[in-house]
């Protein structure tokens, strides 16, 4: 493929070097060829894609160019897409055709993108390996015996395998950054409230955020502008101005960032990860950044607090899946109680049921104070840690994950081990901060990811730093062997 990035594609389409139809067909063919193995897509919307591509070509011939005209994109199957199956990776929604579009989908559609299809994911976004999907596991294109990460495994793998130039994902405890790290691509989680959650099937309402997978930080900058902004349909979406992130990355002179490295992020790192990480630090020092050691004292409580808040909120959010108005309904039910119990038990997988039960427990009478309320206080502790840190530094750096991808099946019987792999990512969700993972090297031919965390609504500096790093390195250009 001649075009290695979203920006190259947009330019080519604008200059009419390639038609939208041709480009779209290229990716659809790539999917046909490679996806049987990888299983990135739950639904491929071939007809609609070709039709939209033709529409875009018509517009372009009339001189109408939109910010993302002709850009093919894969959408995580957690975003409601009107008239198209939206499964959230679950049997519960296997028969669900959404009657409306999520705001993110609407914005991207209106900006001229072409949806290739809906990507595979951990069921209801609960998981870190894309192994809990009703539609089977997704493979990591670097080594198909390994997981791509989760929950946005399909979206990450598709971009890594170059069968989609970019994709959307969601991140509640690391579900964009971790798969980006394991798949060797860029994954951006914006500030909580930066992007509308309307139409994004809710897992943990106070943690969920929509984000992007790209091969290049500048691509993420371009796309972020198009999906950000206040949405009157989402009470938690922010009205803070959306800057031109791309323009900032290219034109702004800032280089000498003060970067904090939390002690808590580098204790217990294995040697290979440590080496890659310290090499990355040297590169950043080389371009003029100052490195400072900082403390994020309560990092260790992050996973525990997360595993209270997220299940609690999801136990309530998933109550609407009752088999009454849409979704899976059991045919074994002769009473209302049976309808509920059987439909839900048949429709949900093990991990989802576990989290619902834990969440119900954490909110129940007698336990609410000790669990949910306490966890929300711990959130405050963690947020304060970050607040204090950002008084001294511009950005915070660390590895995205403790290690590279693990083998498919390796952690499925050990939920706790799975949860602990989120240790570097969950705190940012709890504090609502933006963060990005970019490739920083390899260990045994599997990718490693570097995480940059910024202050609230400071995506522009995260992207800027990533762009500067990517000017000095070529990890992000590496592709898996087909």
């Amino acid at each position: 493929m001649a075009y290695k990035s979203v920006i190259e594609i947009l330019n080519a389409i604008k200059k009419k070097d390639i038609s939208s139809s041709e480009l779209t067909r290229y990716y659809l063919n790539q999917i046909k060829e490679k996806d049987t193995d990888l299983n990135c897509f739950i639904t491929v919307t071939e007809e609609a894609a070709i039709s939209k591509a033709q529409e875009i070509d018509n517009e372009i011939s009339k001189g109408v160019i939109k910010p993302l005209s002709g850009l093919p994109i894969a959408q995580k199957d957690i975003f409601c897409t009107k008239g198209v199956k939206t499964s959230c990776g679950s049997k519960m929604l296997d028969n669900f055709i959404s009657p409306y579009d999520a705001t993110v989908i609407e914005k991207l559609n209106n900006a001229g993108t072409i949806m290739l299809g809906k990507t595979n994911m951990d069921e209801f976004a609960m998981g870190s390996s894309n192994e809990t999907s009703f539609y089977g596991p997704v493979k990591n294109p670097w080594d198909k015996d390994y997981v791509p990460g989760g929950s946005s495994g399909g979206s990450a793998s598709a971009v890594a395998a170059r069968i989609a130039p970019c994709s959307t994902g969601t991140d509640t405890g690391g579900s964009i950054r971790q798969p980006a790290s394991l798949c060797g691509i860029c994954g951006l989680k914006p500030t909580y409230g930066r992007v509308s959650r309307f139409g994004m099937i809710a897992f943990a309402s106070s943690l969920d955020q929509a984000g992007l997978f790209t091969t290049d930080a500048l691509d993420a900058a371009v796309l972020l502008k198009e999906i950000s902004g206040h949405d009157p349909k989402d009470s938690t979406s922010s009205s803070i101005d959306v800057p031109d992130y791309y323009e900032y990355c290219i034109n702004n002179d800032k280089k000498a960032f003060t970067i904090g490295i939390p002690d808590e992020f580098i204790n217990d790192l294995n040697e290979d990860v440590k080496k890659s990480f310290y090499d990355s630090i040297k590169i950043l020092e080389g371009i003029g950044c100052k490195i400072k050691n900082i403390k994020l004292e309560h990092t260790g409580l992050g996973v525990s607090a997360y595993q209270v808040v997220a299940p609690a909120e999801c136990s309530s959010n998933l109550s609407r899946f009752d088999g009454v108005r849409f979704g899976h309904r059991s045919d074994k039910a002769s009473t209302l109680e049976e309808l509920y119990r059987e439909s839900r038990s048949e429709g949900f997988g093990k991990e989802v049921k576990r989290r619902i039960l834990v969440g119900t427990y954490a909110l129940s009478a007698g336990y609410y104070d000790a669990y949910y309320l306490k966890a929300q206080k711990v959130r405050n502790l963690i947020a304060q840690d970050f607040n204090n840190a950002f008084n001294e530094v511009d950005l915070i750096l660390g590895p995205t994950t403790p290690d590279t991808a693990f083998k498919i099946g390796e952690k499925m019987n050990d939920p706790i081990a799975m949860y602990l792999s989120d240790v570097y990512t969950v705190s940012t969700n709890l504090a609502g901060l933006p963060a990005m993972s970019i490739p920083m090297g390899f260990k045994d031919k599997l990718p490693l990811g570097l995480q940059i965390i910024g202050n609230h609504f400071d995506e522009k500096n995260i992207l800027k730093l990533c762009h500067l790093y990517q000017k000095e390195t070529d990890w992000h250009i590496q592709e898996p062997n087909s």
Partner: protein
Amino acid sequence: MDKKTIDKLTFLSKLSIPESDIDELSKNLDNILKLIGEIDAAPTDGMIPMAHPLDFSQPLRDDVSKKDINRKENQHDLSKTKDGYYTVPKILD
């Protein structure tokens, strides 16, 4: 976690766990509770629970009704409706 508690939780959350899975579930839940129990020791005296990451107030919507409801589209799944009503097994009151 004892069976009684699990039963209460499955009742509240409308799930049914087959007998054969109860032991494994109980073990998993115990481990999870152990993990999350670590927050117990956290120094949170005087801290306010953080319900939202950002400190904003609820935006308000003007009281204008919109006539954009399409029942046909909303009831795409006809197996669950009759004459526009949703139907469930009869509820005895």
